């Protein structure tokens, strides 16, 4: 088994779609949030909408690591990158995120040494290869990615590397979900839970959603079949009046999560009292900073940072998109002023951002398309 194609099979998809359509109570609309940007990407990339009945609406959640970085943090990172002896390392997606003073790519064109890496370990390798430079890793991501950063810092400490630090922007999914649940315009029927985050934190932390907010949540894998299956599981729960945390992605997600990953995070990082999320404002205990024990690897302590809060651009409605209140195309600047080439908001940058995913993959009239497909098959 390759654990990929098997979960993209058209036949299985049709069966699931039929069962989903069957499960919908006629006349009722179901709105589920896929919390994770990875799911958003899958949905658009595979054209999942074509298989869902009109009763099922998927709205996109805050789980896109790139999307939630506030502008002030981008500016701080660029400030670091501009120091003449610094090599800034970053995942590729991050390089196009606009701060108040442009993006990493702009800073790079203007002379900063900014390099894309595939792994935080690559950043550490760069640090070892450039002992006379200070190498900073722009750490972003949810609990999925935080363990990799933490393990990298532990390696750096073990190897005695002193020219490496982390600009830590790791955020946590639970406080974000809680913020959405607590929002006055909350109107969801359930959640498609983030599969890879859950591989680290396990399924228990979602318990309060079922218990306290009475909403079902299914932890889902990232292949299109996984998402359809999860939708069906949510519909089943609603139909059966259950409200539970279920694990559709048991092949990858252990119910208890990953102990080593959590303890690495625990050693290297500490909870921030609060952290700004782009479009969502400050959320308490929602992010990680470097712990005191690893202060030497903390770019926030190694560098003097401006730390200025930058207001989001006026027309930006990323907050609403991230809370699932607006569909991407409902934002006024979507596809006109805000495009993947010239993003105004962060959701247009990462391929996991709802706006980018919709723009890149979903931006067409499905009815017209189906007509065209009909013509083509007749031709």
């Amino acid at each position: 088994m390759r654990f990929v194609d098997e979960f993209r099979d058209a036949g299985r998809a049709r069966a699931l779609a039929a069962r989903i359509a069957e499960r919908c109570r006629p006349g009722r609309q179901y709105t589920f949030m896929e919390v994770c940007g990875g799911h958003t990407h899958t949905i658009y990339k595979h054209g999942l909408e074509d298989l869902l009945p009109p009763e099922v609406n998927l709205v996109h959640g805050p789980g896109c690591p790139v999307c939630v970085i506030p502008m002030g943090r981008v500016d701080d990172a660029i400030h670091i990158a501009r120091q003449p002896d610094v090599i800034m390392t970053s995942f590729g997606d991050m390089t196009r995120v606009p701060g108040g003073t442009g993006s990493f790519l702009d800073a790079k064109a203007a002379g900063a040494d900014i390099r894309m890496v595939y792994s935080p370990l690559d950043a550490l390798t760069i640090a070892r290869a450039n002992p006379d430079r200070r190498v900073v890793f722009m750490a972003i991501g949810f609990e999925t990615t935080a363990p990799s950063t933490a393990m990298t810092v532990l390696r750096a400490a073990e190897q005695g590397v002193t020219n490496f630090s982390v600009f830590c922007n790791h955020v946590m999914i639970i406080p974000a979900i809680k913020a959405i649940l607590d929002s006055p315009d909350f109107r969801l029927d359930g959640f498609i839970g983030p599969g890879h985050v859950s591989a680290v934190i396990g399924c228990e932390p979602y318990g309060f959603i079922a218990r306290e907010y009475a909403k079902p949540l299914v932890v889902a894998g990232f292949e299109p079949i996984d998402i359809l299956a999860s939708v069906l599981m949510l519909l089943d729960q609603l139909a059966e009046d259950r409200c539970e945390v279920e694990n559709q992605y048991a092949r990858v997600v252990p119910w208890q999560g990953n102990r080593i990953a959590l303890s690495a995070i625990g050693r290297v990082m500490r909870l921030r009292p609060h952290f700004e999320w782009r479009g969502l404002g400050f959320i308490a205990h929602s992010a990680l900073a470097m712990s005191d024990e690893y202060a030497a690897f903390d770019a926030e302590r190694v560098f003097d940072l401006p730390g200025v809060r930058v207001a989001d651009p006026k027309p930006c409605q990323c907050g609403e998109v991230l809370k699932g209140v607006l569909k991407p195309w409902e934002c006024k600047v979507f596809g006109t002023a805000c495009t993947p080439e010239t993003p105004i908001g962060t959701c247009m940058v990462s391929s996991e951002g709802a706006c980018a995913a919709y723009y890149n993959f979903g931006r067409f009239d499905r009815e017209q398309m189906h007509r065209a497909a009909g013509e083509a098959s007749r031709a």
Partner: protein
Amino acid sequence: MNRERQVLARIERVRRRKPVVREELITLAHGAGGKATHTLIEAVFLEAFRNPLLEPLGDGALLAPAAERMAFTTDSFVVSPLFFPGGDIGDLAVNGTVNDLAMCGARPAHLSAGFILEEGFPVADLRRITASMAAAAEAAGVTIVTGDTKVVQRGKADGCYITTSGVGYVEQPVTLSAAGVRPGDAVIVSGSIGDHGAAVMLARDDYGIEASVASDTAPLHDIVAELLKALPEQVRTLRDATRGGVATVLNEVASASETAIVLREDAVPVRPEVTGICELLGLDPLYVACEGRFVAVVDGAHADQALDVLRGHPLGAGAAIIGSVAADPQGLVLLRTSFGGTRVVDVLVGDPLPRIC
């Protein structure tokens, strides 16, 4: 004075000897237009590319135009690394320009080559590159008839950049034009896609990824000529799917013809290794460059015939019909996924794989 005169005569003989490049590394003098430049041109470039039109080494080459129409194209090559599995910057530079001419429906005839060399570049590497170019030119039946060499200081280039231009003659009565594409046409690709981009990226070794993928760099004039011979009026347009990949080329076609192009994901030929690399790096093979594959849009009624012609050629063994042209939504390329959904395939944004050609 008699002995002096003998010495002078001997010096003249020495000066007329076949020049030899003694240096191991390119210096700025090789770009200054003086003796070192001449020596480099004669000992390296002329040696590699020798042909009667180039030989006078004048300001330009004199050709004899032989057709009603002529195609003219240029491309600069800055691929990094210069050598990669399946090829190097040299055959890329020849094939790239040969292919652009072929896409115009022209028989490639003559090439020019402009070299920008970095001070310190190994002469041995330059010889290896010019040997590839000579072999590629020979294989494509073209001659390199004029050229130029510049040398820039260390740190002002990356070893070697090559700009080739080409002229070719349009001898078949074909009208190729992206604007002529119409609903009902079929979209064919001549082989598996993304091999070149994947091979170059792996050769760069930035990501610690290993796989056996070789560039598909190849001259396409011959397979194109066969296709045009068989279907002179049914081939609407031809595009080699280089930078930006098949996706970008088809967007250009959709946009020029104001049609929709609808691809079938499971029909697009991609090697498993290329799929693996793309998965690891979060890329889409539709955007990964080829250097020896082209897209042909053909009258739908003759699609199978076109496919047969292509598959009958060694460079088209992997050809496949990957989609068709519809009337709407105008200007868009869409993909029917294997999974059963539909999505847009837009023009590439950003730069996932720089310096692949």
